[in-house]
């Protein structure tokens, strides 16, 4: 039988039972729409996680000060500062360490003119920007003399700058942090949200020495809350972690069985874990969506079976005038594949619409890739073939006389 004839026949059969065809297709439309949307949204989520990871800085270890247990009581890590700047200096000497930045965070009220803003002030050193892979939008970083002299200088994050200065360039202006004047020497490029959904740009950086001696003096005599360490490469993360552990145990006089008064975390590992969680999530979403595709396929099979029964006499007649079993098989198979393919195309449109809406509503960057479109089309043709095969075979195996006699 000529192929165009098969298509025309199928189209005619579909048009006769228009409502039924549309409802059958709907299963495919929803299935394909869901798969396309889920793949795109999963992709988008993965991309934003990756963006956050790269904004965090790479090959990073972080040492957090504070005993895990103290006198049988377990405190939150970081609650009592036990790390010193000298620890940071010692870590810097370890092989494989690229950069070390101490961190002394605190909250302070910042005032510029009539505007004020409460934010995190982080005492750190010039290496911090390098570790976090954070560029300055304008101005300069801390100099060596700023560090030594505990100068009252500050670098602003974009959010702080926006709230205090609006569109004015803050570099060179003087702000008051906890009522002391600080000169703004730099403005950071925006970084966006962190894992926890915090605004990373809501921050003011000051030299760690300034933070210790002048800003949070009483609280942080000579101690720092944490130390960020960047290694020369990802493969050095665990050896450096071990060496750091040994070094700090020795410096803090902690014997083997004692709990250390610090905690080393591999941030890169955590980030990768988060990334793989996202990957698994999007895979799961895709899988759940595929189930609806299968359900759509079963819908096609169901309707094709009904259609074969309804058209038994027609099949008998076609066989009587010369249709081979293969012709009948082709006819019903074409119909099933046509329904699933048209459903797939409509599903693509629906998926695109969903992705556009989700992107709008949740500020995501879901993208429909060419690969996912290709997968959707391939899968729906396969679904149509698979679920159409049984009914079509059933029709093709009918005995001509039995079929003709069918009422």
């Amino acid at each position: 039988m000529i192929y165009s004839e098969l298509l025309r026949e199928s189209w005619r059969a579909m048009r006769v039972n228009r409502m039924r065809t549309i409802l059958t297709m709907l299963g495919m439309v929803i299935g394909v729409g869901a798969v396309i949307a889920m793949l795109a949204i999963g992709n988008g989520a993965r991309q934003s996680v990756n963006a956050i990871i790269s904004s965090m800085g790479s090959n990073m270890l972080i040492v957090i000060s504070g005993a895990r247990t103290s006198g049988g009581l377990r405190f939150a890590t970081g609650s009592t500062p036990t790390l010193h700047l000298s620890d940071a200096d010692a870590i810097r000497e370890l092989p494989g360490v690229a950069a070390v930045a101490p961190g002394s965070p605190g909250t302070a009220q910042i005032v510029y003119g009539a505007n004020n803003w409460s934010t995190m002030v982080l005492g750190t050193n010039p290496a911090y920007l390098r570790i976090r892979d954070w560029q300055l939008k304008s101005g300069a970083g801390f100099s060596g003399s700023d560090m030594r002299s505990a100068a009252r200088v500050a670098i602003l994050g974009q959010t702080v700058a926006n709230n205090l200065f609006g569109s004015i360039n803050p570099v060179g202006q003087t702000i008051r942090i906890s009522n002391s004047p600080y000169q703004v020497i730099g403005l950071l490029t925006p970084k966006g949200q962190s894992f926890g959904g915090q605004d990373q740009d809501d921050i003011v950086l000051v030299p760690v020495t300034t933070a210790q001696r002048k800003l949070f003096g009483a609280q942080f005599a000579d101690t720092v809350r944490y130390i960020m360490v960047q290694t020369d490469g990802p493969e050095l993360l665990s050896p450096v972690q071990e060496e750091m552990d040994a070094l700090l145990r020795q410096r803090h006089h902690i014997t083997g069985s004692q709990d250390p008064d610090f905690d080393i975390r591999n941030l890169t590992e955590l980030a990768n874990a988060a990334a793989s969680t996202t990957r698994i999530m999007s895979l799961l979403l895709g899988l759940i969506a595929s189930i609806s595709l299968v359900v759509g396929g079963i819908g096609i099979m169901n309707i094709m079976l009904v259609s074969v029964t309804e058209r038994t006499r027609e099949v008998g007649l076609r066989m009587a005038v010369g249709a081979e079993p293969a012709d009948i098989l082709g006819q019903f198979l074409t119909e099933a594949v046509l329904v699933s393919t048209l459903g797939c195309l409509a599903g693509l449109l629906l998926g695109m619409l969903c992705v556009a809406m989700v992107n709008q509503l949740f500020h995501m960057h879901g993208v429909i890739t060419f690969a996912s479109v290709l997968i959707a089309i391939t899968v729906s043709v396969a679904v149509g073939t698979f679920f159409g095969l049984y009914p079509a075979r059933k029709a093709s195996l009918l005995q001509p006389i039995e079929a003709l006699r069918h009422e």
Partner: protein
Amino acid sequence: MDVPLIHTVHMGKRYQLLSGDLHALTDVNVNVQEGEFIAVMGPSGSGKSTFMNLLGCLDVPSEGDYYLSGRVVKSMTLKERAHLRNALIGFVFQGYNLLPRLNCVENVALPLVYAGIPTRERREQAREKLVDVGLERYTEFLPPQLSGGQQQRVAIARALVNNASLLLADEPTGNLDSRTSDEIIAIFERLNRERRLTIVLVTHEPDVARHARRLIRFHDGCVVEDGPVSPSPPLRQALP
């Protein structure tokens, strides 16, 4: 002598039922030469339709053999039988069996679809056959828009469209009034006369059977009579 178009040797058909075997047809030995016009008669349930289905290669005999144009039908594949039905045989049924969604031309052209003939030629040939049966004005009509007689004429056109050499009609006038029935029979007679088309026609009405030249009568699955139709004199006889 030519190879007979139809040649059956002890042909029988048995249906296996729960209550035992049912012999719908037993020991049928019939020869049909090309150009014959045969009426098949017999009481209801005597095996006429079974006989026609076997002749039309819609079914295969369970006993004996059936030779169509000298070829054994039983040993053919489904595909070969489909080709045979397509190229050699035209069917006319009591219930017309037109596809209600297709218009007359498309219905008539259906066998040509399976012969792999392109659309335009199909339509042309189908239209010719519709002219043959006097339906040139109804080419685009759908079957439900036609009278019974007209529908049967469309079915005849469909049976003719592949230039079949054997026309099998199972009670083609069973659903028609006598006037319409006469028209249909007139078409059969003309086709037999003008084109030497071999026709086997099942009927319950002696009036219809009268137009044939040979009569085969069935009773309980057996041929009980095979001879010229009386009273009109036989033109040619092809008894075994």
